[in-house]
């Protein structure tokens, strides 16, 4: 009886270890590295300090040219805006957005790199901002 119990416990422990083994490895940010190779931006938003959109219309995202064109309201304080990217499943952004970003230097547009779920494809998008003019 005692022998059977020991075997049973050993089997359960092995099952637990097998069950907990990750199917996918984890990257330096604690995110799963998956099989997906897709790598693109699906949506872009830009919020002001009042957390309201500063866009005058939807951002135009060109996934081939890897550009994002955004038209913003006249008078937008571009030194203090919050960008928001929507990415394809499992992808991540580099650099990370951790708060307000200064987009005021329109001659040197900001760039963000999308990294695919398998972390093998990297595509750099450039954000071009146009301010409304009277």
């Amino acid at each position, binding site marked *: 009886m005692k022998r059977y119990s020991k075997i049973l416990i050993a089997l359960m422990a092995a099952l637990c270890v097998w069950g907990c083994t990750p199917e996918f490895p984890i990257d330096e940010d604690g995110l799963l590295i998956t099989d997906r190779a897709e790598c693109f931006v699906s949506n872009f938003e830009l919020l*002001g300090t009042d957390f309201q959109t500063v866009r005058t219309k939807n951002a135009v995202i060109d996934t081939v040219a890897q550009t994002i064109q955004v038209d913003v*309201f006249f008078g937008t304080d571009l030194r203090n805006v919050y960008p928001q990217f929507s990415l394809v499943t499992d992808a991540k952004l580099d650099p990370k957005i951790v708060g307000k970003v200064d987009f005021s230097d329109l001659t040197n547009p900001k760039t963000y790199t999308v990294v695919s779920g398998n972390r093998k494809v990297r595509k750099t998008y450039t954000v071009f901002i146009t301010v409304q003019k*009277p």
Partner: protein
Amino acid sequence: MQRSISYFSTLCLSLLLGLTACQIEENPTVTPLKKVGFQNDVIKRTLGPNVVGLDLEFAFAMALPSEEGKLVSAEVEASIGGASGTYLEHRSYYTNGSGDDIGVVVGQPSSSEGPITRVNFTADTSAATLRYYYKIPEAARGQQVSFKFISTSSTGEKITYEMGPYTIAKMDMKLDMTISDSKAAYLSIADMAVYTAEEAAQRPDKIDLVYLYRSIPNITFNHALVSPVAEAQYRPDVLIPSGLTNSTRISKVWNLRDFHLARLQFGIYIDDLDFEVLNLSEAPNYAINLRSEAGAWVETADGKYRAYVYINAVNNSAKTARISIKRYTLQ
């Protein structure tokens, strides 16, 4: 086998004990939280920061068994005497079936002597709930205020209930100033007032923001508050009297409808702490496209004041806005 019997017996005994412990007592006794006899109780009815000029409202309840006498007087002693308008209701309120508060006169209108406000009962009653309104005085700004609620019965027995201390906010408040494009368009945070161009010219160092409304093709400008030295494109065709040189930092806010300023249903309050932690070092010196129920954090150029300007209403055709301000003095 012997072990199984032992297990079975222990289980049965435990269950039996559990059932016995859960049996409801047939004659429960209720122990009153307080002594039986003359009692009183108080609740504070106002919420949010305590701002000078506003009321602190309390509901002051007192009762004693009718065989022990009746109520003779009720008084409230504040640690700092209330401003004019402080009073203790001489009506006792109850709530009827429709949810309305109905007042029944139980005494003479209250009288105040220094920090003490008193009502002498005229009705033969042994229970009452009176409202106490403490108008926060200027002397209490930044201080703590506490209250003693005292009831006296016909036998001479006095009972006391203490409330507080409550911290009185340092900030000021000014409601419903109408600001008008090209007329009373010059806002002074220091004075919490709006001035015309002529008046602004007489006190140029005190003018922090200029109001304007513009409807410009191809852009969304609308209502704006800009500092007198903002870029010209943000103050088109605005007359800036000479000497107005303040570059006031201003940051637009949405969905911050402070209850004191907006007087709407939203239970949001700006307190001293919000001004203390506010960081406008990166903010611009203009805010355009302001809407009704929006607001803006402001810091004056001399760093003396921080304020929240709330837009109560705007009128595009009249080119006016109604604003309310909370202001905190930093230095």
